[in-house]
């Protein structure tokens, strides 16, 4: 059973509004692989990831997680998800621990967190170097620290698969290094990773395979493009990872 892919997309099409965003893409991520999904803004890379987690409905094709069709997949504690940072801000203050604890809910029965769950939350905070800020409000954190908290939240259930949507966007250099180290440890421990990236950046040495999307189709699937080639990719616009938060795409609705 360990031979079957962790993520499998076959001929997946998806629309936002009535605009086709994915036009039949195939994507397979094997156990222990680290795959980067690359492409320009609007190429469909975030949408592809969001079909995997069921946030965007698929109009054609098949999505499987751990060999189970996505619709019937219930084993969510095996998946850790880091959304684009803009999605996680509530109107009420919340501490770092409170936010990370919600990542552990997939393991907690009836939402009751036991001692083991609290320890897992603390370990996840240690992994991203945020244990000393556990009781601080997430509103008081910098962009990079906030991103580390969201990654800790994804790590809290001790997942086998990590899905990250632009984890380096708007993250300062110090946090980028912490994130790269955290990811390296996870990969060494055998975690499968699917990353949406705008550019390879400091994560490049970790990546086994790159899938490049363009206009909702797979353009390239193979070894990661070298630093030089990456800049030569069609439609590639160079945005530094420490660009201001305003450079991130603005989300206008539930499905955008």
């Amino acid at each position: 059973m360990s031979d079957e892919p962790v993520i499998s997309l076959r001929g997946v099409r998806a629309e936002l509004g009535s605009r086709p965003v994915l036009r039949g893409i195939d994507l397979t991520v094997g156990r222990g692989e680290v795959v980067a999904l690359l492409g320009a803004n609007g190429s469909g890379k975030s949408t592809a990831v969001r079909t995997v987690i069921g946030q965007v409905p698929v109009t054609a094709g098949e999505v499987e997680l751990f060999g189970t069709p996505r619709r019937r997949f219930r084993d969510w504690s095996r998946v850790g998800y880091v959304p684009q940072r803009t999605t996680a801000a509530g109107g009420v203050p919340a501490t770092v621990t409170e936010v990370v604890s919600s990542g552990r809910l997939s393991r907690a029965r009836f939402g009751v967190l036991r001692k083991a769950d609290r320890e897992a939350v603390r370990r996840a905070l240690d992994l991203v170097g945020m244990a000393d800020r556990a009781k601080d409000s997430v509103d008081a954190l910098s962009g990079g620290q906030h991103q580390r908290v969201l990654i800790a939240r994804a790590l809290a259930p001790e997942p086998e698969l990590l899905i990250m949507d632009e984890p380096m966007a708007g993250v300062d250099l110090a946090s980028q290094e912490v994130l790269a180290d955290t990811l390296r440890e996870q990969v060494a421990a055998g975690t499968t990773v699917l990353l949406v990236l705008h550019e390879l950046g400091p994560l490049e040495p970790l990546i086994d395979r790159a899938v490049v999307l363009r206009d909702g189709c797979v353009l390239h699937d193979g070894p990661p493009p070298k630093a030089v080639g990456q800049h030569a990719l069609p439609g590639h616009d160079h945005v530094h990872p420490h660009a201001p938060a305003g450079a991130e795409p603005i989300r206008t609705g539930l499905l955008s």
Partner: protein
Amino acid sequence: MEILNYAFMQRALLAAVLVGITAPAVGIYLVQRRQALMGDGIGHVAMTGVGLGFLLTWSPVWMATLVSVLGAVLMELIRWYGKTRGDIALAMLFYGGMAGGVMFINLAPTGSNANLTSYLFGSLSTVSESDVTAICLLAAFVVLVTLGLRRQLFAVSQDEEFARVTGLPVRALNLLTAVTAAVTVTVAMRVVGLLLVSALMVVPVAAAQQLTRSFAATFAVAVAIGVTVTISGTVTSYYQDVPPGATIVLLTIGAFVLLTVLAVPLARRRARAATAAQPAADPAECKIPATRGATDEVGV
């Protein structure tokens, strides 16, 4: 305390305490998901329930519960599916609910606009025995949901997309939040009134936020503020012969202003501590204003 010698005041005070607990307990999730005005919308829809209660000579409280629960579910469905003109659909629901209430109560043989006024702005003397039973049962439901499912509701209200990946039944929890808010509206209806109930859901939470950094503390402080203002407002209303709903709401806003002023030195100290601990911090990040415009809340 001669005030406790009157049976109607005992009932009013009991109802007031339950309102003080339940309204902020639900309100905190509405504020967290930026739907602070949802309670106001449900209040409008509940008017049709009150009117129907008079027309069919049913208990207005139970009828209002039924209609406002239906209205809340409808609003949640509009939020899911009505991506384009969702705000227009909600507006029609709100004003249709209000117009329906006025129409039904005037058609009812025993009803008049005077009856309606006590439901709109609250009244102490009209909380009957059967109202108290209904309020207790409904309040128990609200407390059970808002405390028992606090982790799940927190996760869904904080980040719906992430909550889905933790396997939580996001749609069911959203519906439950809407239904619980609707139930709270009818709990609060007799004392605070339908038009002012939303204030008691939102303002104690906003006031508590001036002092707190965690969700748990915000919850506790908001409920404490809620109970304090509903009791003191009810007592003031009795002695000064002023309407209870208006008194309670003005006291709540007073508490907000007081805490905002008190929080200034606290915020300065925290800001200094944060800069000391984190020199490279970006101060423009993540600060969410406590008060928001109407368009934020009803958006889809």
